[in-house]
């Protein structure tokens, strides 16, 4: 391990590892620096200019997200010059954003970082700008949508698509005020290399990239988040089930750095939750009648019928004439109970799960 370094932020001596950025050291020490284009998982882009700080020996303000630490580096994160820069920059962003009746960037369900910043920082009111940013054409994909009016061109989505999902389905396109996020040839995502991972939605700081099916402009707290584990593959991604009125309206990833999936999900975990509330779900116990059809029954009837049937087989043919197929889709506690049922109740070790790996 290379030696640690000492840097000074706002006069405070702090230890840092070679290769870290000023922003990383500041964050670790709870020194607040605003950011918009930064995401721990991505290479620093230094493009939003929100995180600019003063660095001794540098004439201009410099992006802390992209400034590597060096021994005895001296940084200030607060100064009248930085305040002025932030007030103007934030003013520019706000002037080119969709605002609510209070003149602040609108709330979005996934959280609007621009609004959060504007709520806590004085900024210059500038005349509204209406950039002619290119909208997305017709896109039949059922999950991901783009709203150019909320886009701040931080390129988190395109960098995520490139660096993490590594399919480069979306990119910055056009120039100047027309700059937008686009696919090659303006195709719908289904006709690109896109794998519908939804990472672009997840990293978007404002909600410009958003989930098609979910309500878009809910205030924080209107949607309850329940942390759980994905029920598809064995990666065990942690996810937040976003619940409103007893229904899952969206699945989001917990913030990066906290869980095994580091803020990432795939198309199944993030979007394929439609089965939960599907009309085909079984709702009522059923018993097969003499007519060969399944008929609704009460729980009491069904459980006793099931018990009688299984006990009957055991009594006629012995315990090892029974097989118990447990489920690698169900919980540990449930699998424990299935094997307990087989072993303690029916006296057989004939119990297995779909154990292919």
């Amino acid at each position, binding site marked *: 391990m290379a030696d640690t370094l000492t840097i000074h932020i706002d006069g405070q001596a702090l230890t840092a590892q070679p290769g870290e950025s000023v922003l990383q050291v500041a964050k670790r020490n709870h020194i607040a620096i605003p950011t918009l284009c930064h995401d721990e998982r991505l290479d620093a882009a230094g493009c939003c200019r929100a995180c600019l700080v003063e660095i001794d020996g540098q004439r201009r303000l410099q992006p802390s997200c992209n400034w590597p630490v060096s021994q005895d580096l001296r940084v200030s994160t607060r100064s009248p010059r930085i305040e002025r820069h932030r007030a103007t920059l934030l003013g520019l962003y706000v002037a080119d954003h969709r605002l609510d009746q209070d003149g602040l960037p609108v709330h979005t369900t996934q959280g609007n970082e621009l609004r959060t910043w504007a709520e806590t920082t004085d900024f210059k009111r500038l005349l509204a700008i209406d950039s002619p940013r290119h909208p997305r054409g017709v896109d*039949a*994909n059922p999950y991901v949508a783009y709203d150019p009016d909320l886009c701040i061109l931080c390129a988190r989505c395109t960098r995520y698509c490139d*660096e993490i999902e*590594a399919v480069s389905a979306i990119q910055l396109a056009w120039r100047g005020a027309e700059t937008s996020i686009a696919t090659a040839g303006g195709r719908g995502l289904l006709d690109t290399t896109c794998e519908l*991972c939804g990472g672009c939605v997840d990293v978007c700081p404002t909600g410009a990239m958003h989930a098609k099916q979910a309500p878009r402009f809910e205030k924080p707290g209107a949607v*309850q988040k329940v942390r759980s*584990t994905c*029920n598809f*593959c*064995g*990666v*065990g991604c942690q996810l937040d*089930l976003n619940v409103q009125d007893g229904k*899952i309206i969206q699945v989001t990833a917990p913030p990066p750095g906290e*869980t095994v999936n*580091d803020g990432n999900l795939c198309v*199944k975990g993030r979007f394929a939750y*439609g*089965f*939960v*509330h599907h009309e*085909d779900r*079984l709702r*009522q116990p*059923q*018993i*097969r009648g003499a007519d060969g059809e*399944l008929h609704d029954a009460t729980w009491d009837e*069904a*459980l006793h*019928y099931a*018990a009688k*049937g*299984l*006990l009957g*087989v055991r009594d006629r043919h012995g315990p*090892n004439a*029974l*097989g118990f197929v*447990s*489920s690698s889709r*169900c919980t*540990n506690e449930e*699998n*424990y*109970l299935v*094997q*307990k*049922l*087989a*072993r*303690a109740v*029916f*006296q057989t*070790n*004939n*119990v297995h*799960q779909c154990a*292919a*790996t």
Partner: protein
Amino acid sequence: MTNSVPEIRDCDLMFVIGSNTTEAHPVIAMEMKRALHRGARLFVADPRAIWLTQMAEQHLQHRPGTDVWLINALAHVIVAEGLYDKAYVEQYTENFEEFSALVADYSPERSEAITGVPAEQIRQLARAYATTKKAAIFYTLGITEHTHGTDNVFALANLVAITGHLGVRSAGLNPLRGQNNVQGAGDVGAHPDNLPGVQKVADAGARARFEAEWGAAIPTERGLNLNEIMHGIEDGSIRGLFVMGEDIVVSEPNAARLERGLNELEFVVVQEIFPSETARFAHVVLPAACFAEKDGTFTNTDRRVQRVRRAVPPPGQARPDWEILADLARACGYPMPAYATPADIWAEMARQSPKLAGISHERLDRDGGLLWPCPSPEHGGTPTLHVGAPMRGKVLLHAVAYRPPVEPTSAEYPLVLSTGRVLYHYNAGNQTRRDRGPNMKFSSNFVEMSRRDAKDLGVADGELVRVVSRRGQVEVPVLVSPRVRHGLVWMPMHNFATATRTNLLTIDKGDPITGTAEYKVCAVRVERLGA
């Protein structure tokens, strides 16, 4: 996995064999891509040119079922060129003599003749792997779904052990487990040889502990594994069946034979969330809650126990599986304790399971996931196994000789069929088939075929063909694809329609130890319709 998921991004070399990671474990693939972005080297061995092979430095495109030949040849090079970790072998392995004598016969040139992988490629990978410290091996069902699946795993374990890649961060041997709780279900005893807590049925001490806990005797003879239960259904020795959350007539091989057996059973209980294909054979159907409607834990592929939490109520009268199971046991006259929540069930199991004893729902709620072994409430869990020394003291090197797949191709069935998964669907498909996106991507079964085989047969991309094996036949469209070589066809195992289920074709011979069936190799022919 011997190592944990977050270690992947720091790997310097990744050898992925028999794992279509970007489709089957997409978020682990993202970690691999991050390692690549950092400059890590990637080698992929797979009979198909999956996407990962395009990101790889080398694609070792071996013939299906020849894995032992490929892996032993890698070991051959490492031993012959003296690249193995002599100190580690000396101190921490046994049986090196027999092992090295065996691999001496597996030269890269002979391997090339059988696997189709150029000898030079084998040498390059062997050298790179042996000389890189943070070098990890990843595998999935491409390794295990064979009648020699256990041999494949032993052969890989040999590579890891002789190069001392065990107990090292960002290295190790890493099976990527397929389903959300396939690891956990086995850990807690849904296994014919294992009691809860990764303890053997044959272990009298463990048996005595659970007998005391349950107030019931536990049979001492080993039970039947899934493959054997299926065979028991077919030969009539199994007469009654309880199935929870598994659509066996979709996911098990040789589905038509299984269905005939199921029809003859005296009693079948199916506990499910959807009217599955298997529910057609049920005498009783018990409607269950899905993961979002109940509490509990899943254990993921890196042995991480994590919480599952109820977010919404189950539909209609459906109930969480744990409640149903407890009530079913009671209906059978067994005094199941009154569990208030699944936390009580976990506690009952963990107090008799030393490896899991330190984990409780309360701790998981406070700290997030914990990786077992975790023997005490103070223990922080174990991300990397075998640090310092192998857990059992020494690693036994298995001298595994190649055995061919059980069903060779013939004049009548000239093509090898391999099965697998696509990104957008999940297993039987009961869940993903009911969402729009997966269906927009894939709404019917298909058979992937090389351009050359399609041309020989005279079929065009998208044309409907009949795939025939000794066990069944299905009609599906052809996907002409550069991913497969001449002689190999590939189909997904998801259920798109009852009549086109891929597992009507597959062979139900299983690995002698695990019972896992040879889904990756059976012989078929493809016929033009109306020809």
